[in-house]
């Protein structure tokens, strides 16, 4: 058997991907949006020294609350206003859960992984509980989705692009950014020069979780227009991997989100725009379950390849004690 077919197939794959870029790019961007927002949440929390594995649960609860708001209001105030209210409620839900997480991690000094687990387990339970009580028996739909503006991207997806740039700039060029990094790297030193470590961490976790809430709103109000139990499907954790991949910087994390978006989009694009020839036969023969599992496996591989060389903020995950002897 001639082994030359492997480089030929790779070349064909590259040509194929280049030709489908116009179709691929919007799909990648829409898939990357919740991941990027989740990763921004991770960056905000961890840069200030708080590990947050509850992004998944925050997203899910906010997705539900946003959907529920649209569902409850669209009959009385119209779809557009109901969706707008839903987005606000989703962000507030995120902020509220951020407050809980910050309280557990900063004030109570509970284990931060356990605190995140509380958010994740609680979110699954609460959303499924009220879904079964309120939405499922009604048999009614929600308020629909926000229509796209350009390139198939809606306002939340576009806002995400802006937020990535803005937060990256602020993190490295503003007083808030300097304080955030100081508190995450060396809280004792930050405290000594008069930065309120607790307040800074509370602020960052609450703001970050509001963004995770926006990711939830994106899922139910801009992307699918419906709510299913557990619909975040691990996105909160992929977002964490994107954050680590991007070495705790917003733009890097966005790159990670695009990468995971790309591997998710692959399974879609080979169905929508099938490749020709031998390559097309191979791509079509790969079971859809494999495509679906691909982003999760890629996450593991990338995490394994990157993490050893990516250095988290020095005080990440370490609760600050004012009285502690350092």
């Amino acid at each position, binding site marked *: 058997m001639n082994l030359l077919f492997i480089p030929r197939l790779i070349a064909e794959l590259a040509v194929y991907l280049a030709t489908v870029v116009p179709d691929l790019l919007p799909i990648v961007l829409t898939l990357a949006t919740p991941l990027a927002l989740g990763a921004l949440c991770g960056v905000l929390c961890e840069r200030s020294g708080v590990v947050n594995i509850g992004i998944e649960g925050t997203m899910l609860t906010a997705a539900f609350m946003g959907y529920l708001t649209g569902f409850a209001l669209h009959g009385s105030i119209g779809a557009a206003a109901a969706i707008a209210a839903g987005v606000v409620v989703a962000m507030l839900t995120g902020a509220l859960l951020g407050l809980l997480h910050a309280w557990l991690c900063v004030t109570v000094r509970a284990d931060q992984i356990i605190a995140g687990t509380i958010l994740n387990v609680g979110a699954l339970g609460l959303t499924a509980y009220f879904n079964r009580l309120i939405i499922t028996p009604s048999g009614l739909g929600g308020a629909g989705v926000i229509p796209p503006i350009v390139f198939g991207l809606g306002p939340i997806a576009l806002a995400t692009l802006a937020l990535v740039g803005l937060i990256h700039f602020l993190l490295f060029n503003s007083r808030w950014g300097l304080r955030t990094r100081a508190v995450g790297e060396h809280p004792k030193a930050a405290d000594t020069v008069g930065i309120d470590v607790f307040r800074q961490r509370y602020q960052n976790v609450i703001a970050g979780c509001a963004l995770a809430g926006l990711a939830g709103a994106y899922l139910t109000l801009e992307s699918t227009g419906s709510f299913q139990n557990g619909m975040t499907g691990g996105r909160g954790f992929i977002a964490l991997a994107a954050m680590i991949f991007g070495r705790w910087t917003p733009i890097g994390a966005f790159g990670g989100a695009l990468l995971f978006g790309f591997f998710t989009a692959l399974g879609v694009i080979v169905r929508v725009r099938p490749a020709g020839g031998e390559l097309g036969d191979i791509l079509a023969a790969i079971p859809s379950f494999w495509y679906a*599992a691909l982003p999760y496996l890629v996450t593991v591989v990338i995490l394994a390849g990157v993490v050893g060389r990516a250095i988290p903020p020095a005080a990440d995950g370490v609760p600050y004690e004012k009285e502690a002897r350092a």
Partner: protein
Amino acid sequence: MSGARARLGSWWRLAQLPVLAIVLALVIAAAIIIVSSAFTGTGFFPLLPLFAYGALFAGAFASDIALNNTLVAAAPLMLGGLAIGLGFKAGLFNIGVAGQFLAGAFASAVVGAALAQQPVALAVTASLLAAGAAGAALAFIPGWLKAHTGAHEVVTTIMLNNATALLLAWAVTDLVRAPVFTFPRTGEIGNSALPVLLGRNLHLGVPLALITIFAVRWLLERTTLGFEIRTVGANPNAARYAGMPPLVIVPLTMALSGLLGGLAGGIQMLGVIGFYASGISASVGFDSIAVALLGRSDPIGILFAAILFGAFRAGAPLMQITTSVPIEIIDIIQALIILFLAANLIVRRVFRLRAPGLGIEGATTVTRTWGEQVRG
């Protein structure tokens, strides 16, 4: 006399925080039930929690059948709780028990169907071994990655949970589907089914899980490996200087943890479900987290916590049918229990406890290794 009282006192000192956390969680959940009672068809009804908890209790304990159901539901939780608790002892958080549960369930279903006509002893033993091996192999991957690359097991195990569920769905659709059925599933397990020992459904897995509780207790407290696992969890640097290589202990502990998670799937498959199809519940994986935390990663504590959550799972259907309070209230109660254990100062304040802190120390070191490479 005073000796008995002292023993009771020391027992209470250990148990008071978990017990009071459960009480507080049930009170808050009752408030949620009252607030949401407007949607249950009864209209706003402040007494609904009493009826709901009453039905929950009746469904879990009020008859021989209910008691058997509780024990059958508790058995996989004992194994899953041990899986997570064992990880905690080494400073590892194996959230992958859900995936290892599925892998074990799948492996035992496939091997069980292949050996369906063989003698019971052979069929059951081989199927259970397959379950344990599958879980151990799946958990070894994040353990090895943690030790050698620093990839945190919380993220990698959850990613593997998702990938496992999808790849097993593919396998049952395309690889091992039994052709006589109208939907993708594995074949009948015949003689591989765990023998029923008592009543309608109390199967061999229940005593097996109980034995495993004491086996893990023995492993942790009486063997060199157990000592090494606990030392690595308590202080990896000290362990390294004492000649216990975390590079070996971490993957080994994950594999052992996965073995227990896989066995949980195995006894559930061979004792309750009977065939693998995509979408079988892996809720055991997440319930086990609460079980391990509530049991403070201690095998005996896990035994009691598993029976409690087994009772919740066994009683919840009756509660939903008779009072239309959704079974998901159990998940909410779980999250609340973990919350009150993690934030035990709430419990202390509410109940005015003055005893020194006995929180979830077994798990308080989990965050330490975030992004940090294990050195061996």
